[in-house]
């Protein structure tokens, strides 16, 4: 199935907004592993990245759906 991936913060140095093909039943853990394999140079940041949908962070048990838009939330630095 297809997801839309939107990186934020320093993850944008490694890859841009894009569509990504993932297996059915994919969750945030698997998505992280897929991204690490696809963009190994971003592994350190990805290790500390959360995944959000509709402005809420995904739990590990949540399954992603076709055409979901997933926002990548690396460690923040506001204030």
């Amino acid at each position, binding site marked *: 199935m297809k997801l839309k991936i939107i990186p*934020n913060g320093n993850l944008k140095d490694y890859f841009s907004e894009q569509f990504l093909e993932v297996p059915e039943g994919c969750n945030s853990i698997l998505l992280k592993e897929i991204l690490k394999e696809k963009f190994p140079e971003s592994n350190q940041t990805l290790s500390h990245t959360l995944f959000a949908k509709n402005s809420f962070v995904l*739990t590990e048990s949540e399954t992603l759906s076709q055409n979901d838009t997933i926002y990548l939330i*690396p460690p923040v*630095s*506001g*204030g």
Partner: protein
Amino acid sequence: MKLLTLEPIQVDLLLSSMKSIEAGGIVLFSGNTRNSNQGRSVLYLEFESYEPMAERMIAEIVLEAKKKWNLIDAICVHRLGRVDLGEPAVCIVTSSAHRDEAYKANQEIINRVKHEVPIWKREFFEDGTIEWGVQCPGCAHESHLK
């Protein structure tokens, strides 16, 4: 009032909007762009965010602080986009019957905003380099969960 804004934060207006005859203590924190960071000259900062989530989280953090510290009122406004030297990047105002609660709540709000809210800072240095702001790996992320 918008909690995230591309426009300069009107600190005076923010402060005056919080005045109340019930408030014996009003605390204002203004986090401004500094001209140096770890010995390097800074020209300006840029902030970006995942706005729907950031707005929701700031509102929740402020509401939780109001309840916890029995505040009369509280507000937090964060800039997005370019923030020049000396300009506020974030402002927090807390008001309470007595000063202690207003101080503590204000500090709690800024600490949570810095560590939890999806906002990212880029520093533009005089030497031409651009760097993402210092981040806190893994901090407080669990608090985002539904």
